[in-house]
C-alpha cells in the first residue's frame, strides 16, 4: 500500500469520507460530502431519487472516480485504487440495478465472490464453493443453487445480489437498495439477515427507501439531498427533522 496509515484517532472508523465531490459534465452529483462510518455500525443513507446516493457508493467502492475529496478505508486512502483491489481490501457492495452473471448458476455467481473477494479470495475451489453455498443458504437461496441466475425472479435476484457481496467476505458492506421490490415478509427476512451480518462485525452502509428498514437497522442516519449532506444524526431524530420531511415530500404550504 502506497499510503501510510492515518492518525490513530481514526482507529474507530472503518471508513472516512472527506469533502467528496463528483461532477458529471455540468452536474454536481455529489457535493462536498463528509462522513464517518464507525467499525461495526450500520449507517443509514437516505435521500430522494437523484440525490447522489448511488454515485457516492460507486466512489467508495471504486467504480466511479471522484472529482475531488478523499476516501479513507481502514486507515488508508483508496483514491485511485481500482475497484478489484478495493474488493480485496474488504469493500463489498450490491447494486441497485443488479449485476448478476446471467448465464452462470446461482452457485457459480456466489463462487466468483468467494474465489476473488477479500484478500484475493479463497484459492481452493472446494472451500470456495462451500463458502458460496453457505452465503446462499444464509440469504435463503439454498434450494436454487443449480438454477441459472437469469431464471431467478426479482426477489431472488435481490437475495443473490446480497449473497454475492457476502461471499466476498467483506469488512465493509455497501447495500444499495437491497429491499426495493420486496414484500413485507421478505423485507423482514432481509432486515434480520443484515442484522446477523452486522453481528459478525461487518460495518454496513445501507441505502434504503424502505423506512422500516432504516429505523430498525441504522444506528445513525445521514441524509443526502441534491448531492449535499443536509443532516446527520441518530435515526429517530433525523427522520423527524422538518428538512428531511421537506426533501422527501416537498415544502409544507403555508399561508402568507
Amino acid at each position, binding site marked *: 500500500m502506497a499510503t501510510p496509515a492515518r492518525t490513530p484517532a481514526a482507529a474507530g472508523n472503518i471508513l472516512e469520507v472527506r469533502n467528496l465531490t463528483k461532477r458529471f459534465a455540468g452536474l454536481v452529483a455529489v457535493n462536498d460530502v463528509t462522513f464517518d462510518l464507525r467499525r461495526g455500525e450500520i449507517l443509514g443513507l437516505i435521500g430522494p431519487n437523484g440525490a447522489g446516493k448511488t454515485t457516492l457508493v460507486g466512489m467508495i467502492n471504486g467504480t466511479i472516480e471522484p472529482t475531488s475529496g478523499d476516501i479513507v478505508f481502514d486507515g488508508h486512502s483508496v483514491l485511485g485504487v481500482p475497484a478489484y*483491489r478495493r*474488493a480485496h481490501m474488504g469493500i463489498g457492495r450490491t*447494486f441497485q440495478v443488479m449485476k448478476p452473471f446471467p448465464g452462470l448458476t446461482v452457485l457459480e455467481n456466489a463462487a466468483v465472490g468467494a474465489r476473488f473477494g477479500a484478500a484475493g479470495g479463497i484459492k481452493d475451489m472446494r472451500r470456495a464453493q462451500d463458502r458460496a453455498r453457505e452465503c446462499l443458504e444464509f440469504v435463503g437461496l439454498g434450494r436454487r443453487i443449480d438454477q441459472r441466475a437469469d431464471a431467478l425472479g426479482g426477489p431472488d435476484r435481490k437475495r443473490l445480489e446480497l449473497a454475492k457481496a457476502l461471499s466476498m467476505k467483506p469488512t465493509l458492506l455497501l447495500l444499495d437498495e437491497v429491499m426495493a421490490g420486496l414484500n413485507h415478509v421478505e423485507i423482514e427476512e432481509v432486515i434480520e439477515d443484515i442484522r446477523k451480518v452486522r453481528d459478525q462485525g461487518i460495518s454496513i452502509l445501507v441505502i434504503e427507501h424502505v423506512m422500516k428498514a432504516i429505523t430498525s437497522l441504522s444506528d445513525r442516519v445521514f441524509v443526502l439531498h441534491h448531492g449535499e449532506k443536509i443532516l446527520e444524526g441518530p435515526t429517530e431524530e433525523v427522520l423527524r427533522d422538518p428538512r428531511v420531511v421537506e426533501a422527501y415530500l416537498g415544502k409544507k404550504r403555508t399561508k402568507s
Partner: protein
Amino acid sequence: MPGKEGLTLFFPEKMAERVLTPVETRAGSAKRTIVFVIVLIVVAALAALPWYGNSVLVQFGISVLLLATLAQGWNIIGGYTGYASFGNSVFYGLGAYGVAIAMVQFKLPFWIGMIAGLVLAVVFAAALGAAVLRLRGHYFAIATLALAFIMTAIVSNVEIAGSNIGLVLPLLKSDVLFYELALGLLVLATMTVWWLANSRFGLGLISIRENEEGAAVMGVNTTLYKTLAFMLSAAFTGLAGGIYAYYITFIDPVGVFDVGLNVKMIIMAVFGGPGTVLGPVVGALILSTISEVLATKVTSIASMFFGIVIVIAVVFMPRGIADVLRRAGRSPLRYFVDNVRTHRL
C-alpha cells in the same frame, strides 16, 4: 440474537465436510470419466491416422486440426472472455511470419522459428490488448477488424518479410510430421481450455464475459485477466500459423493475414459452442467436413449451401452444438422453437 448460521458464515473451513451430495458428485465424476476415455480413444485414433489413412486424408486432417486449433484459440478470448476478436488472424499471420523469417532470412531451424512466431504473436497481443481491450462489444470487434485489414498493408512494406511478394520456405515433404504437430497443438490448446473451465483464472474470464463491472467489483482484476486471455489466445493461434507456414512452404501477406480465416474460426467456435471445452473442436470438424464434401460433390453451389447451413445453425441453435447436446435431449422440437423465440428471429 445472532443466529448459528450467521456465526459460521465466516468460518468456511469448519463447514468443509458438509453438503456436496455424494450421489451427485459420483454421477458427475462418472460422466467425466466416460468423456475423458472417449476423448482419449479419439485422440489415439487420430494420432494413428497417418498409418491407416491415405495422404489425402492426412492433408485434410492437417487443415482441420489447424482450423480446430484456431477455433479453440478464439474460444479463449471470444467464447470464455466474451470479446469477439477479429484480430486473431493477425496472430496467425505473425506466427507464420515468425517461422518464415527465421528460416528464410536467418537460416534458423524450424523450432526456433516457432518460438519467434510465438513471441511475436504474444507480445503483439499484449500491446494490442492494452489499447483495444478497453473497448467493449461492437467497438472491440471493429477495432480488431480494422487492425486485421491494415496488417496486410503493413507487412507488405516490411523488407525482411519479403515485402508484398512473400517468402518461400524450405520444403519438407513429411505430411505425417505436420499432422502430428498440428494434433499435438490442438490437444495442448484443448487441455488449456479444459484447465480454464475448471480454474480460478477461467472463472474470472467467464465472470468478465457475463458482467464485467460486476466482476471487477467482486475482486477480478479485469484488465490483467483480459490481457492474459488475449495473449493465451494469440499463443495458440500464432503456433498454428507457424506450422502452417512450414507446411505450405510459401506465405504472402494477403494469404496469412486473411480476415476470412478469422471469420471461419468464429463460425466454427460458435457453431460448436463458444465457451465450452470441446465445442469449437467439434464445430471445426463438422463444418470442415461439410464444406469439403460439398466442394467435391456439388462444386458450383457449394459455398451457397455452406452459407445456408450456417444460417440455419444460427437460427435454430445459436448457442452451438454443445448446448443442443446438453439441453435438447427431452424435447428437441421445443428446444429449437424456443431458441427461435428467445433470440427473436
